[in-house]
């Protein structure tokens, strides 16, 4: 089959394989996230030229080398503005951002907030391991209060950032949480996020087996539950906010029954105009398809005569 017959070629997760050694630690949650991403892209039937992924800097960002796509491995904390620039010159591309908790909710928090409020059409995947992986285990903005790390030997003093709450407060139209230990559920959430028009957040609890000895696969597995199985409808922003708040005050030593972690879609609102919808200059497709000749500025010059 080919596109010439008007049919789309079948895309499989293996189409995104790259033959390079993957150097994440054995057992790292990033492997499952990578598989889920490839499966989601294949299920959505997205060919390589139809989307691009922008990565931040961190262990998550090294995924740029582990998947065969059009990618931009941007600066620490700056994946969102880089992706936004791309989105604003090429409206035909689906755009995905992969970021870490230090990357996106620490250094990049300002961009996160502004990207949410502009409802730019980007699917944002947060690799939230509640620790800095690449820089060897310092506390991250999502580390639970009291967590001892090399940069916080007597325990984190601040409350953790609540990415879902921040996104909801800024008017996000798709807010979800996944757990890296459940590839099927995560794949579904990725697909929903990528298909959503507008800013779509999927914050993923992604255990770092090397530096976060507390929030392990086991720790999460004992606590996570799925909202779809809990008779929850993601259509009420206030309820979504309360739900998002519910885990902020979890302490690492809280027993599993007292620290339940919801996953799934917290909130979804369709039909809200995206930032791109409001930019009439994008109506004619990608910029590189236009402007091969100098632009005629004689009309504008007249304003200065």
């Amino acid at each position: 089959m080919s596109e010439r017959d008007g049919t789309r070629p079948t895309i499989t997760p293996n189409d995104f394989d790259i033959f390079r050694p993957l150097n994440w630690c054995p057992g790292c949650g990033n492997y499952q996230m990578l598989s889920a991403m490839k499966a989601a892209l294949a299920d959505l039937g997205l060919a390589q030229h139809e989307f691009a992924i922008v990565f931040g800097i961190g262990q998550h960002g090294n995924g740029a080398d582990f998947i065969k796509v059009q990618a931009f491995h941007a600066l620490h904390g700056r994946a969102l503005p880089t992706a936004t620039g791309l989105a604003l010159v090429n409206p035909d591309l689906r755009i995905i951002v992969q970021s870490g908790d230090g990357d996106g909710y620490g250094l990049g928090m300002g961009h996160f907030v502004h990207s949410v409020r502009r409802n730019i059409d980007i699917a944002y995947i947060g690799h939230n391991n509640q620790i800095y992986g690449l820089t060897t285990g310092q506390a991250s903005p999502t580390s639970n209060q009291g967590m001892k790390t090399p940069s916080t030997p007597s325990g984190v003093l601040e409350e953790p950032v609540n990415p879902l709450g921040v996104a909801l407060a800024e008017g996000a139209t798709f807010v979800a949480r996944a757990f890296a230990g459940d590839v099927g559920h995560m794949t579904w959430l990725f697909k929903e996020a990528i298909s959503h028009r507008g800013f779509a957040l999927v914050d993923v609890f992604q255990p770092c087996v090397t530096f976060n000895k507390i929030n392990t696969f086991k720790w999460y597995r004992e606590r996570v539950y799925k909202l779809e199985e809990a008779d929850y409808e993601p259509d009420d922003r206030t309820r979504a906010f309360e739900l998002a708040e519910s885990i902020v005050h979890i302490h690492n030593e809280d027993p599993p029954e007292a620290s339940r972690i919801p996953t799934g879609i917290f909130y979804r609102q369709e039909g809200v105009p995206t930032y791109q919808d409001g930019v009439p200059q994008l109506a004619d497709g990608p910029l590189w398809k236009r402007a091969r000749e100098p632009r005629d500025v004689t009309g504008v010059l007249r304003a200065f005569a």
Partner: protein
Amino acid sequence: MATTAPPYGREVRIKVAGPAGAGIKASGETLARSFAKAGLNVFDLTEYPSLIKGGHNVYVLRVSADPITSHVDPVDVLVALDQLTVELNASELVDGGALVYDPDDVTLDTLDARLRERICPVPVRLTQIVKDAGGKPIMRNVAALGAVIGHLDFPLRFLSESLHTQFARKAPEIAEQNVAVAAAGHDAAREAGCAFPGRVEPLPDAPEKLLVDGNESVGLGALAAGIGFYAAYPMTPASPLLHFMARYGADAGVVVKHTEDEIAAMNMVVGAAFGGGRTMCASAGGGFALMVEAFGLAGVSESAVVVGVFSRTAPGTGLPTWTEQADLRYVMHAAPGEFPRVILSPGDMTDCFELAWKAFNLADRLQTPVVLLSEQYLQESHASVEPFDVAAVTIDRGKLIPEGDVSRHDGALGCEGRYLRYKLTEDGVSWRALPGVRGASQVVNSYEHDEYGHAEEGAQMRALQEEKRMKKLDLARTLVPPPAYFGPEEADVSVVLFGATKLPVLEARDWLEASGVAVNVMQVVTLWPFPTDEVRAFLGAARRSLVVEGNYSGQLEGLIRQHALLEVDEHLRRYDGRPFSPEQVFGKVLAMVGRGPEEAAAPAPEERTAVQVGEPSGKGADR
């Protein structure tokens, strides 16, 4: 023997000053446009503190039938919109100069008796005129402009036209009301009967001129080059370029984004370049400080971006609305590591237009950031210039594969037939494919990388990629605009400069020539890669050499020493926030040739004999 005083040409200098927030800059522009519409040459300079209310704003306009290139110091007509102006500026008037003021709220009694004798008062009841016309208090300025025009015996119709242009977007009644106010001011000034020796006449068959500032000129150049994306965060003196883009660019299809900060602006521009758009951001030095991180990203990722750095004075927040040329070394070395960059430095409005469009071609040809380094003086001053040569604009996107299937583009492929974004090439530039194009799987990377774009730490590949990128400087040398030269081949003094210092120096050069001193000038247009050979040749042939630059430490002079291994004889530097005045350069060069005092003193107020600016029409006062 020539004098040691500047031989000013046929010209009139008008200064309008008053409280901040009174719309002095906008009304000054209206005045400038009126003279430009009559074919005359104008140059203006706005001095204003970084305040919206409660400061002293000054607008200086120079009008001449002869070519002029900058502002000058003496004042022929002073419009005092408040008492403070009288105290601060009246002494700058030339002998016989006119002082336009409203006798209802400004008094000349506070002036020194000798000064009062030297000048010619033109009382015009500005507030009353506005009241009589049923206008708003802000229209006082327009009454004052009318008075200036009336006093100079210049036809009112040009001011009326200019007011119509200014208020075109508002209701026509507002324009009419303004014209009525201007007419009343015009008549009142004529009644005041002050006989100033200057008269301004329109030029017959005036050639069409543009009245533009540096920001507008850069904006026009970028538009002509087909810019697709402009991102910025407001900062003086680059904010007007954001406004220009939002107003004219958006109509022309440019996506314009006022971002959350300069960090986002620069990263967006890099992302937009990845997407294939021609992209630009601009700020002052302080905003560029935030952009530096992503400026380095543009370097390592080989992104074709244009960055405007429009300098103001001093570090930190500095003097936000004043000028300096101290960001040269900073821009040259900004960002960690090393990577090729091009730094272009416009010296006037025409340079702004040309270098802007050329910057986009260079960025695309070299796939590396190109900086337009300018300064507040140029970005915010207006001049009447020949219409820009839009026919000369060309688009060269370099090694870009915008469409088709990358896998069929041999030059871009590795031995296994896979696209190599960072393929090692002779000239250092690899074929660039865009996301959205088939087969273009690639990583554009902020990490050092291999030919595919994958992160790579191997010593050999690191060195090869560094060498690949740096080779672009050799290519750049063959593509960048060469230095510009002014004046005779043989000269008494040879001046090297960059940026808008060109404006006062060229003015002074003409005066020096008229005084019998031959001066030639080398304007370093491309500051990086540094034109070592050209500087050597120029200075090697110099009898006496002088570097004029607006910073404390002599950054350009240092580059000459470092690259051309040459010492210059003398330098003239300024770092008080003000642009060089041509008088200052004139005095310095005279001193170098043993014809004047060592330090150019502020020139004494001139004694004006009658000047006729423009051609006499033979008709009487024409309203």
